[in-house]
């Protein structure tokens, strides 16, 4: 048999009980009877001085490592530690709680963003004197908002418009973008998150709207 492999050296070292820093392994009772080495390994070790020396040397290093005890923190440390962790996570939402499990779930974020924008638009309209009424005293007949979108995006929103989107589209027609920016300017993070959540079709539509807006501005 050739010399022991790294695997076999580790197995043979771990078969030794109570290794101390001297790496002494001669005593019979130092061998852990629960760990059996393959017969070929034992036989080779018994007759190979080089492998015996190597094993004793590695066992000595292991004994040095084991001899290093760890300083025990103060018993008061653990409660302090738990309080620190609790404080550090106090601002984090608990998974499954109402906040993370409801409105702010990732899949709801785009709709929540739209709802917030719609609310901001409605607020601006109210601040500017309220909705225009038609001759009959009711709201002017709104043009279906979905119809104003491109076919790709209109398909996604088809069936979702219960009338509120149309109302928003109608009142938004009179708004100036400058006013909207002042009232409903989202944070950079919120804008990024909202854009990340858009589908490719929605991204295309957004780009189209931006280009239209920019060309109109020129």
């Amino acid at each position, binding site marked *: 048999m050739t010399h022991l492999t*790294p695997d076999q050296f580790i197995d043979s070292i771990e078969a030794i009980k109570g290794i101390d820093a001297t790496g002494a392994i001669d005593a019979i009772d130092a061998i852990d009877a629960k760990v059996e080495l393959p017969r070929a390994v034992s036989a080779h070790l018994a007759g190979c001085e080089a492998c015996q020396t190597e094993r004793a040397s590695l066992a000595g290093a292991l004994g*040095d490592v084991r001899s290093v005890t760890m300083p*025990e*923190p103060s018993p008061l440390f653990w409660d302090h530690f738990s309080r620190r962790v609790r404080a550090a996570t106090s601002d*984090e939402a608990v998974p499954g709680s109402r906040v993370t499990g409801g409105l702010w779930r990732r899949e709801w974020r785009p709709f929540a963003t739209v709802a917030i924008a719609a609310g901001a638009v409605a607020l601006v309209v109210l601040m500017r004197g309220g909705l225009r009424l038609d001759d009959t005293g009711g709201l002017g007949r709104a043009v279906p908002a979905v119809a104003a979108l491109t076919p790709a995006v209109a398909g996604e929103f088809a069936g979702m418009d219960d009338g509120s989107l149309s109302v928003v589209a109608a009142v938004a027609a009179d708004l100036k973008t400058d006013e909207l920016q002042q009232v409903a300017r989202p944070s950079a993070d919120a804008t990024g998150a909202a854009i990340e959540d858009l589908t490719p079709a929605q991204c295309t539509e957004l780009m189209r709207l931006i280009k239209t807006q920019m060309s109109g501005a020129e």
Partner: protein
Amino acid sequence: MRAGANAAAAAGWKSAWDLGMTGRDRTGSAVAGRPTDRVDPSVSVVSLDSADDRALVVAFLGGRRDAFDVIVERHRRHVYQLCFRFMGSHEDASDLAQDVFIRAFKGLRNFKNESSLGTWLYRVAVNVCLNRRALKRPETEPLDPAQHIDTRVDSPLEHVLREEKALVVRDAIARLPPKQRATLVLRVYQELSHEEIADVLGSSVGAVKANFFHALGNLRRYLQSS
């Protein structure tokens, strides 16, 4: 006496840790099946203390913040010890252990029941420590006599000699390549099996043994040269 008390505490902790690692409850009974499939997240505060790790995870993911408190209480000691063995100072270990639990809080929804919670936390801790060490030069542990010296066990001279040797060994361990150091710490100090270490490090048992072998060889060389 102190050593005896520490050993008893360690034994108590070891058994508590084993609960998490083996999925056994405190009565020693094996927890049958996959508890996550049938644990009620609204388990009472009283039962949280006796719940096994998987039940705690389910309770936490169900919105129970106090379940995470129990997880921290149960695993903080081992996570701290691992961080200390890596970093060599109480301050770093304390900060990193806290970081481990903050990451666990945010990432526990990604915990799969393929391994125990203890193993998963070790994996997070090893990654946190390796990332920190990559940004920081290895340091020897600063001695804080007021905090660590216990003169009830050793004479002052014996203690100083033992601490000097410990510093040399810790310094040698700190010089090991990351995977060898992780393997050595997990095997010798955390007493994980080769299979568990392979799970933590995402490698094979053969690679773990090879790393352990090379770690001991390098240590021997470092210790002889110092």
